[in-house]
């Protein structure tokens, strides 16, 4: 580890110790506890607010709900759409994001690694409207021939059944755009953690004759695994809740199995597209949709937590 306490620093700290008394300790502990409780309280307030606003939807009769067949038949195609879009994004972005982070931390020469890391951080800042505009004008158009090829050659798989969209504004395009949007999140966070891998571990592995990949597999990845999962969770949250990019890129419609036709819809995009003109029960419906999105995240996090728990013993600090 590159961080060590010099003698001067340690003695300075020891002097400080005399100055800061027991009071400092308890005040600090109190503040951090307070912050944690504040977060819990605000989340509870948000959840309560969602629930109260959504309540009229659950009490309304089935005919009053959009689609005329009750809230659940209104929402479930969008639940599937949301999960599919986020899943495509995660499947694409996770391996690439982690590998790019590895490239920056362990493969690239420092001269290249720094600017690349910097640029990746910036990409997280491009507003989703811009990703959406880019997705429709550049990416969707570029993917049209690819989709035509997919339907022609792999059309027997329901996922790629034709006819392919003429504009390229499909679920698969949305997934790719989302993947590009969340890539910086995964990369930036994984990179920071990879860099912090104890040097001694790495050097020990290399000294034992491990190749670079074996060193990474044996020291870096176990050390970083909980962090990687955290970053993927964060990215997943963004992918699930992304509104504007999906609203602009997707040519939405009813649920279809094919990823290369127009159709499907995500919850967040449905909210964004209909919210401005919504009032009364419709507004409540959209908020109820938001509540469902909230619940999806809850479930996803529970699953992730179970996965992390399995790897807990590798956590670096302890």
């Amino acid at each position, binding site marked *: 580890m590159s961080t060590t306490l010099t003698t001067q620093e340690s003695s300075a700290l020891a002097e400080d110790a005399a100055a800061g008394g027991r009071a400092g300790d308890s005040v600090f502990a109190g503040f951090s506890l307070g912050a944690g409780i504040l977060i819990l309280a605000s989340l509870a307030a948000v959840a309560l607010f969602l629930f109260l606003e959504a309540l009229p939807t659950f009490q309304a009769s089935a005919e009053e709900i959009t689609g005329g067949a009750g809230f659940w038949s209104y929402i479930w195609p969008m639940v599937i759409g949301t999960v599919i879009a986020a899943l495509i994004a995660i499947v694409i972005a996770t391996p690439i994001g982690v590998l790019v982070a590895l490239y920056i931390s362990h493969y690239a020469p420092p001269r290249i690694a720094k600017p690349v890391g910097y640029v990746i951080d910036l990409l997280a800042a491009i507003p989703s409207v811009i990703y959406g505009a880019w997705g429709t004008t550049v990416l969707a158009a570029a993917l049209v021939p690819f989709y035509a090829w997919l339907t022609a050659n792999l059309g027997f798989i329901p996922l790629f059944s034709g006819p392919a969209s003429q504009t390229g504004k499909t679920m698969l395009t949305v997934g790719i755009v989302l993947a590009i949007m969340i890539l910086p999140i995964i990369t930036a966070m994984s990179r920071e953690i990879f860099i912090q891998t104890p040097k001694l571990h790495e050097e020990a592995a290399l000294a034992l004759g491990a190749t670079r990949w074996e060193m990474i597999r044996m020291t870096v990845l176990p050390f970083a695994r909980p962090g990687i999962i955290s970053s993927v969770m964060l990215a997943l949250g963004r992918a699930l809740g992304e509104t504007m990019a999906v609203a602009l890129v997707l040519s939405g419609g009813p649920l279809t199995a094919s990823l290369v036709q127009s159709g499907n819809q995500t919850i967040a995009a449905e909210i964004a*597209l209909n919210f*401005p003109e919504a009032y009364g029960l419709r507004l409540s419906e959209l908020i109820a949709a938001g509540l469902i999105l909230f619940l999806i995240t809850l479930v996803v996090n529970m699953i992730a937590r179970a996965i992390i728990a399995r790897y807990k013993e590798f956590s670096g600090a302890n």
Partner: protein
Amino acid sequence: MKVSHLGRSAAVLAIGSLALTACGSDNATGGGSGSEDTSGSSLSGTLTGSGSSAQNAAMTAWQNGFQEANPDVTVQYSPDGSGAGREAFVAGGTDFAGSDAYLDEEEYEASKEICGPEGAFHVPAYISPIAVAFNLPGVDTLNMDGETIAQVFTGEITEWNDPAIAELNPDADLPDTRITVVHRNDESGTTENFQEYLAAAAPEVWTEEVSGNWPSQWAAENNKGNAGVVQSTTSTEGAITYADASVVGDLGTVAVRVGEEFVDYSPEAAAAAVEASTPIEGRAEYDMAMDLARDTTASGSYPIVLVSYEIFCPQYDSQETADLVKAFGEYVISEEGQQAAADAAGSAPMSENLRTQAQEAIDQITAAG
């Protein structure tokens, strides 16, 4: 040293941003601020509205025109959408609302709480034709009747050289290109007005209930906003869409059958259709909310029209707000205001007759005793 290098660039950036913060200006157009030469306007204060985004371009023009004449007044308008605008207005959050649809019964009742026993009233200040636009190289205009348009948009007619279209356009050179329908994916007043027309002109074909959303059984390619559908149409040969006439640009447009003639969209034709409409019943005395006559046969009127209202209260709590609203309302419906909107947003100016009615309605705005 890296640190000093980084520090230096940070310093440059910081100075740059300081310089930026120091000299920003609200005088974007570079003209005189107008504060000296105005005719002693005594109005001051802030007027707040929100609602229809369709009106946004016109509202920008009205805000500026009004603020130029009354330099101490600020008019702020947030184009959140008609529903949001009506809701905020009825809840007392704004002084006026812009909306593509009039208040429904429930909202009207609620408006009595903040507007007094009369309830809120509507002024149809923004009138804009909705064009049916298509992308066929070499074809600038096509004749269609309501039935044909409905069949195209419901996917019953799938090719441009379909006999139904060819019959109405004997002179046009129609290719066998596939028709790609493009519709809005966001809920909008444009969609609702277009559907109202289809439901009135072709009730056998358009069997879905009219709403601001495109029915999912006829879902096709779609995009967000007027600008979005026009962009999709422009980039796809054989595409057809409907959009606010001001945005269609170079696309070909459909002349719609009214009675025995085919009428192209134009501001005059749109205003004529509004003239022919009937006011709705059971509202405040001077209310101008109307049901548009989609099946009109009046010569020279174009029935696919979007009418967007300004919604005001007849009574406001303070004299100051009442004066402000009244003055702003008068400006909006004045010949000057309507012309400003037409120049900026390409809307259709209100007819003389409508303006007189609107003036009467606005005259009754007072402060609550």
